[in-house]
């Protein structure tokens, strides 16, 4: 055990440890050598494995995603770095028409072991083309498993799991949780084992037990929700905080059980509001816990506008600790319908 700060080192360490014993793992993408994939997810791999296994590609999202599809179909397990998730547009066809579907369309013949690692999120003034979250887009498409770690411990265990998965998995690392020196850090230093360990997909973590309401979050919204819960606790409101960890598969059981216990649910999402994660989670909870709900499910998400640049504007659209706190408090104040 030693303390680790942030997701980036944890993810890079997981890849390193798996590459050491799995020759079929090859890292591809933009700036994966010297820069360790800009957000650090592949740092330290190049000096160790060289260009034979850590391959800088030209800035050609469509082509390196397609290469991953082709390479996976004949026996490699490519780990693909998509610099910012915002750039998926340029590579999306190969991702959603091929990577996600070839296993199914081939009647199970074609394996598609690909792990895509990408950076998400705003909060540091990078504006609309570099601050999106977009995991809902990928979660919407059948065929991708979606991992959104909020802690370094989870990031390592879930990455190890992804690298052993025969299916395409996308890991979304939030920039404000990477722990890199050039970005604000909203996570916490934490104990992470040096040895290899795996976390299963489809198991949400209850980060904080509570009885008055459930806050459901993923990625950066987890530490923000925990901070809001602290403030609520000072006022005698007991909030349970659930970290989804994987969006596909989604741990409905934990969500429903928590909603039945608390009767009130607030979903906090850094992705766009409409047609996204918050709607999906709300639906699944009501389907399983309608009789226990004491108030309509509430959600806090980006209000369907591109992420603006200027600080007050950006802060106004990405859920903050303050707004999570306010939304939770008013939800607890809402009287039971029945």
């Amino acid at each position, binding site marked *: 055990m030693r303390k680790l700060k942030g997701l980036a080192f944890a993810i890079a360490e997981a890849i390193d440890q798996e590459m050491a014993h799995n020759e079929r793992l090859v890292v591809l993408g933009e700036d994966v050598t010297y820069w360790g994939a800009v957000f650090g997810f592949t740092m330290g791999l190049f000096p160790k494995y060289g260009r034979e296994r850590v391959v800088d590609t030209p800035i050609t999202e469509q082509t390196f995603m397609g290469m991953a599809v082709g390479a996976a179909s004949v026996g*490699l397990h490519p780990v693909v770095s998509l610099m910012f998730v915002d750039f998926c547009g340029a590579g999306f066809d190969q991702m959603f028409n091929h990577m996600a579907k070839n296993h199914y369309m081939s009647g199970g013949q074609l394996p598609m072991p690909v792990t895509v690692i990408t950076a998400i999120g705003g909060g540091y003034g990078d504006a609309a083309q570099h601050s999106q979250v977009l995991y809902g887009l990928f979660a919407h498409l059948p065929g991708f498993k979606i991992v959104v770690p909020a802690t370094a411990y989870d990031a390592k265990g879930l990455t190890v799991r992804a690298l052993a998965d025969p299916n395409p998995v996308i890991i979304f690392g939030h920039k404000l949780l990477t722990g890199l020196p050039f970005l604000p850090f909203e996570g916490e230093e934490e104990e992470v084992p040096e040895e290899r360990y795996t976390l299963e997909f489809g198991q949400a973590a209850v980060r904080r037990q509570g009885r008055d309401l459930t806050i459901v979050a993923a990625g950066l919204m987890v530490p923000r929700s925990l901070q809001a819960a602290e403030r609520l606790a000072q006022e005698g409101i007991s909030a349970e905080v659930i970290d989804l960890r994987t969006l596909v598969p989604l741990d409905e059981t934990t969500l429903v059980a928590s909603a039945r216990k608390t009767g009130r649910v607030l979903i906090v999402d850094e992705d766009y509001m409409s047609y996204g994660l918050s709607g999906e989670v709300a639906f699944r909870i009501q389907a399983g816990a309608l009789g226990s709900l004491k108030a309509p499910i509430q959600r806090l998400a980006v209000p369907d506008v591109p992420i603006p640049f200027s600080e007050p504007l950006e802060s106004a659209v990405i859920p903050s600790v303050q707004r999570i706190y306010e939304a939770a408090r008013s939800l607890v104040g809402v009287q039971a319908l029945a």
Partner: protein
Amino acid sequence: MIKPEPSPQDLQYLVAQAELDADQLRRAYRQLCLIRSFENLIADRYYIGKAPEFNMAAGPIRGEMHLAVGQEAVAVGVCSLLEESDAVVSTHRPHHHALAKGVEPKKLAAEIFGKASGLCHGKGGHMHLFDTSKHFSCSGIVGASFPQAAGAAFAFRKLGQRQVAVAFAGEGAANHGTFAETLNVAGLFQLPLVVVIEDNLYADSTPKWAALSTVHHFQRAQSFNVPSYVVDGMDLIDVYRVAKLVIERARNGMGPALIEAVCYRYRGHFEGDAEEYRTREEVERWRALDPIPRLGERLKVLGWADEATLNRLRDEAQQEAEAAIQFAESSPLPEPQEALRGVFQ
């Protein structure tokens, strides 16, 4: 690009230069006939239930149908040089490539009919054919084959194997960004990749002159340091001659190449295409260059087959194609629950 018919003496020279023997050429002739018969039978069955009103969803074969009648020589010329473990990534017009790569005609036909006995248990259909045992795949998305074949080539090299990967694409796909991106990567990494542009002069309905700022794609490949060739795609021997050169070179670690095969499809872009973008005369002109009788004549000139042999090869191929269609027709449809299986492994 369409080369004049060689004299008997020159023909012997060309054949010797390509290291083609009588058996190989007779086998190639049979393959051309098999593909032609197969696709004619598919066309025939496709229209069942689609008259008097053309409805894509009706009849035993649903959806769009893109046939490659006329383009057989490109597929056979290239694929007859490949080993089973070499990868082929094809397009939305994939039957000729699949058959030439050795995909079982029965399973292929059954997939086109959406049957449980098909290659993909009815989940892929005509544009999404996969056969991992033959290292064959395709995509219904224009331009998608380039990077996928490059990825297979990348993996072969990484795994220390001697296989090559072939990307087939139409000349319309060569206007897609993936074409330039992939050639750059393939040239940069010296991948064992062969890109084959089947230039049938039309991207769907759009004539090549209306979509391309130059005349040929091979010039564009050269700008990425990728050796490139134009061949007569209606001439099996010409395709074979160049394909042999570049496939061997790729297999021996000498990097990628591009073949631009000028050819023609006798049928529309899809079945039901009114073909108002071209004249009947144009189609007839190209029919005079049909690769099948062209090769048949040469086999006779070379003394490697007489009319009776050609007839026998053609009949055998016809019977094999008919057996495939009958297998497909008599196979059961998949159970509906199958739709919910197999998203993840």
